């Protein structure tokens, strides 16, 4: 038998291309007649455009055109939208300004430099109106969106009656994805109603669908290419106004147009993790049994869309607690729409929940790990269903051992190393393990190559690599002979790469397509090869890339079969989706984070010395890319815990740190040795591979592990992220 491929640390199939510059990202594409675009963005945060003077800009060298609401081609779907609908920002529809940085015009020229310069020459006059960008000052406007109704299990506010209680407010600032690759698009109308796009997206099919609806064109008239994406973290899960602006400019000028936005514009045009304030209240018996959790969250959104996510989700099912109530409200501000950012709402919510648990443990004089184990949810208390698989207790034990949890002193501020206060902290995270619907085509060529195609995306996790491994195990073929192609709207449907679901969804379809291919080959062998006569496709044996009749007395390779039939290829297509198991089981991935931190008592500087993250994510398909995925989440988590915050000056509604020098993502020096462990036990129900999602749990819960460790080191509880030196200094010792 050939070696099993899933579980191996196979190198990325496109690794060489990526590190040698051979991988073509959207902006790397070039074509004849290509023009370059730059956006003119509003410096006011609310009001209307009074006038746009393009005289000077149009006279600048190389300028082809300037498109704004004054002259943009019609977008058919804009007209059919009902007034008052929260349909998002309809770019260039009218003169209304909703937020700072909103594009008001797009300048197109024959070089990027000329477009940028001309954009600075466009003179826009505004009628300014009062804007609101401060959530705390706008709490009166908080409202509830119907998608996120209040939740109640048992009695509301039951925590208050408990023997031991804790209630506090936890706040998170606005965070920006800031992947290395900037957003943008190339739009090329090859005929007045045929459009080709090179996009930065987490889903070519969703881009196609959005454009199809907006421009009311048939699906086949829109082609979207997106083979390589330089990071997404959620920001590329939808089409943004900047892309529509480019498409409109290309339509008007009748030439292909490329837009790549600036780093500064990444703060206002492609979403962000919404700032949120959360009141988390929790009560337990004197022995530490949870009796009530009340979780109330308020987060920001834009004036023209209600963005909701799973902020309060984890509090409903993570712990066995009879009484839980949650509330989630939105505050609309003059700021662009948020979007999912890695670990989306759960990362925000888990900071509150997992910090509160630590605070409760402290009051109970109990080890916070013990408190979690004591309240472990053996079944999902929200849906009252068994979990499809859950090895959280194993993960706790493994993580505790690897970090050396026994060295943790229960009394804060009691350990010092070389003048630094030492603390240990831990937390848990969870995220739904999903499986959607996807279609994969499998083509076997006469030379024995297997080509799989699906309109999936790879924003970095190594999708094609995992798919090749899965296909290799189903077919018994060597991975070198298998190619997985993605990122083309012409391929069979796959959903967006989001919610940690690609391996589950597309991997299942790969499995089914490979099986369908085997069926087809089997049928062919039965019909044409004497040794196979009389057998049924189900009884044919597939082994190491061969087909064998049930008696094993013969074997043939698929390519020999094709050659014998003089067929250039055999192609099958399979669609796959989950079944009733999703109704019978509650499916989640789990993570556990442990950290050892050092805090300088005089300056408040926090240094993380060691991190252990353990994932219960079912079968690990590729141990190398899975490890990278977890480390990436940890790095994002360090940013969330210690450094990241996009700061607005509310007087202007403008960000003051909209660049990578001042918006601090964690750098190498912030990132300590990180040990990643996987439980690596198959989930029996979720999908054929038994693989649950991993991308989100890598980050969810992490920030709380750090703040809990800072408390253990210093006796200071910082409930307002990020934990910068000034906050550590300003927070009193509370033990």
């Amino acid at each position, binding site marked *: 038998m050939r070696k099993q491929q899933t579980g191996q640390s196979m190198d990325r199939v496109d690794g060489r291309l990526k590190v040698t510059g051979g991988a073509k990202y959207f902006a790397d594409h070039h074509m004849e007649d290509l023009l370059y675009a730059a956006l003119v963005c509003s410096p006011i945060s609310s009001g209307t455009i009074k006038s746009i003077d393009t005289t000077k800009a149009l006279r600048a060298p190389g300028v082809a055109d300037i498109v704004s609401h004054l002259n943009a081609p019609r977008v058919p779907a804009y007209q059919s939208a009902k007034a008052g609908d929260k349909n998002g920002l309809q770019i260039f529809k009218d003169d209304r300004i909703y937020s700072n940085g909103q594009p008001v015009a797009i300048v197109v020229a024959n070089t990027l430099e000329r477009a940028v310069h001309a954009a600075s020459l466009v003179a826009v006059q505004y009628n300014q109106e009062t804007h609101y960008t401060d959530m705390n000052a706008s709490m009166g406007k908080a409202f509830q969106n119907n998608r996120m109704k209040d939740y109640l299990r048992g009695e509301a506010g039951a925590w208050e009656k408990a023997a031991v209680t804790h209630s506090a407010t936890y706040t998170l600032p606005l965070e920006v994805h800031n992947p290395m690759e900037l957003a943008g698009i190339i739009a090329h109308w090859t005929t007045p109603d045929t459009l080709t796009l090179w996009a930065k997206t987490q889903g070519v099919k969703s881009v196609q669908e959005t454009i199809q609806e907006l421009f009311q064109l048939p699906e086949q008239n829109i082609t979207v290419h997106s083979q390589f994406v330089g990071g997404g973290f959620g920001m590329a899960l939808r089409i943004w106004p900047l892309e529509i602006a480019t498409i409109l400019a290309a339509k008007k000028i009748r030439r292909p147009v490329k837009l790549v936005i600036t780093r500064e514009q990444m703060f206002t045009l492609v979403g962000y993790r919404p700032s949120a304030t959360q009141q988390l209240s929790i009560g337990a018996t004197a022995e530490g049994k949870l009796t009530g959790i009340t979780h109330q969250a308020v987060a920001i959104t834009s004036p023209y869309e209600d963005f909701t996510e799973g902020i309060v989700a984890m509090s409903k099912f993570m712990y066995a607690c009879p009484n839980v109530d949650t509330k989630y409200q939105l505050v609309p501000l003059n700021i662009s729409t948020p979007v999912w950012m890695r670990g989306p709402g759960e990362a925000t919510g888990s900071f509150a929940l997992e910090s509160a648990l630590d605070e409760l443990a402290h009051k109970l004089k109990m080890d916070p790990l013990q408190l979690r184990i004591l309240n472990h949810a053996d079944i999902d208390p929200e849906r009252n269903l068994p979990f499809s698989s859950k090895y959280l207790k194993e993960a706790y034990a493994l993580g505790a051992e690897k970090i050396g949890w026994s060295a943790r002193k229960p009394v804060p501020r009691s350990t010092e190393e070389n003048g630094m206060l030492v603390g240990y902290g831990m937390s848990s995270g969870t995220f739904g393990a999903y499986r959607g619907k996807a279609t994969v085509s499998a083509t076997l060529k006469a030379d024995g190559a297997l080509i799989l195609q699906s309109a999936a995306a790879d924003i970095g996790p190594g999708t094609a690599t995992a798919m090749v491994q899965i296909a290799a195990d189903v077919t018994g073929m060597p991975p070198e002979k298998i190619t997985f192609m993605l990122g083309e709207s012409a391929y069979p449907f796959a959903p967006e790469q989001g919610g940690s679901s690609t391996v589950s969804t597309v991997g299942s379809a790969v499995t089914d397509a490979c099986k369908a291919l085997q069926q087809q080959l089997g049928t062919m062998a039965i019909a044409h090869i004497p040794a196979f006569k009389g057998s049924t496709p189900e009884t044919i044996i597939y082994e190491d890339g061969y087909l064998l009749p049930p008696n094993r007395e013969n074997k043939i390779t698929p390519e020999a079969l094709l050659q014998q039939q003089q067929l250039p290829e055999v192609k099958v297509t399979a669609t796959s989706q989950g079944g009733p198991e999703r109704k019978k089981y509650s499916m989640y991935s789990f993570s556990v984070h442990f950290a050892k931190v050092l805090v300088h008592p*005089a*300056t408040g500087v926090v240094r993380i010395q060691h991190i252990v993250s353990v994932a219960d994510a079912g079968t690990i398909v590729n141990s190398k890319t899975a490890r990278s995925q977890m480390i990436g989440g940890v790095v994002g988590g360090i940013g969330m815990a210690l450094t990241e915050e996009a*700061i607005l000056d509310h007087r202007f509604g403008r960000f003051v740190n909209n660049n990578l020098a001042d918006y601090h993502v964690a750098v190498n*020096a912030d990132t300590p040795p990180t040990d990643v462990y996987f439980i690596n036990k198959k989930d029996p129900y979720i999908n054929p591979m038994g693989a649950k999602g991993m991308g989100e749990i890598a980050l969810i819960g992490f920030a709380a592990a750090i703040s809990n460790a800072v408390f253990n080191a210093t006796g200071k509880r910082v409930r307002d992220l990020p934990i910068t030196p000034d906050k550590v200094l*300003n927070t009193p010792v509370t033990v």
Partner: protein
Amino acid sequence: MNQFSYVRPTSLKAAIEAVAKNNARFIAGGTNLLDLMKNGVIISDKLVDINRLPLKDIQLDNGVLHIGSLVLNSDLAEHELVKTHHPLLSQALLAGASQQLRNMATVGGNMMQRTRCSYYYDTTMPCNKRSPNSGCGALGGINRMHAIFGANDNCIAVHPSDMCVALAALDATVLVSGPKGDRHIPFTDFHRLPGNTPQLDNNLGKNELITAVEIPANNFTKNVYYLKVRDRASYAFALVSVAAALDIRDGVIQQARLAMGGVAHKPWRLPDAEKALTGKAPTVENFRIAANIATQSAKTYKHNAFKTALATNSIQTALLKATTV
């Protein structure tokens, strides 16, 4: 960015002549100037690239270390003469920016870099430094990173350099050449406080070029420390930084030098604290007294009140680290 012309003279004279015409500017590593030009903060019609001038030497002459203004920050930090004679400077350089930036940044450019105040960088916001009489955006705005010493309502920005803090502590001298000839400026007089001319960062004359920096001989080879407190472990500007240099003999501080970064419009020397340390034993208590003296005149704003305590603590920490090597 506007269109501009570009020249690359090979002599000092030609460079000074070239910069005198058409709203021209010198460019060295370009790590600061290009960002400012791209943001429209600085508009220049001509760039005079000085990288071909013979100003890249480092020599020790009668105990005086001469450093050409085009020496790269990375080269200077690793130079044997610097590491042995002025380790404080080496430490300060290595605390600045990132390896990639230090590989491009020059000594002259580092001294001339503009503040990182967000209001200076954003041309839609008020800023007296960028656009005199438009007001100080930071005063009533986000001022967590801003000055606690020597500022006024015209400008509360800080000078962002780390290198300059060490050079101020080491009593360096700046050598400049201009249309009217050569002159020397004591390092501590090179940068200015905002006063009524916040648009001026320093006392370099129009069309003058920094040719070198010189550091006199000293005894600060052992008990030195550059402490930089920042929001992430690398590649971030200082919340506060402290350059501490002590000459300790016979258990007594013979001479002390203290300067701070991230707290004022210029590298901030702390003469009163230095005086308080001179002739004293290097004890925790004496460090505490000196640190408290140093921060007595601090004036803070809405978001940077933490800097007074942080500065006090950081001075003590730097002194402690300087004495426990």
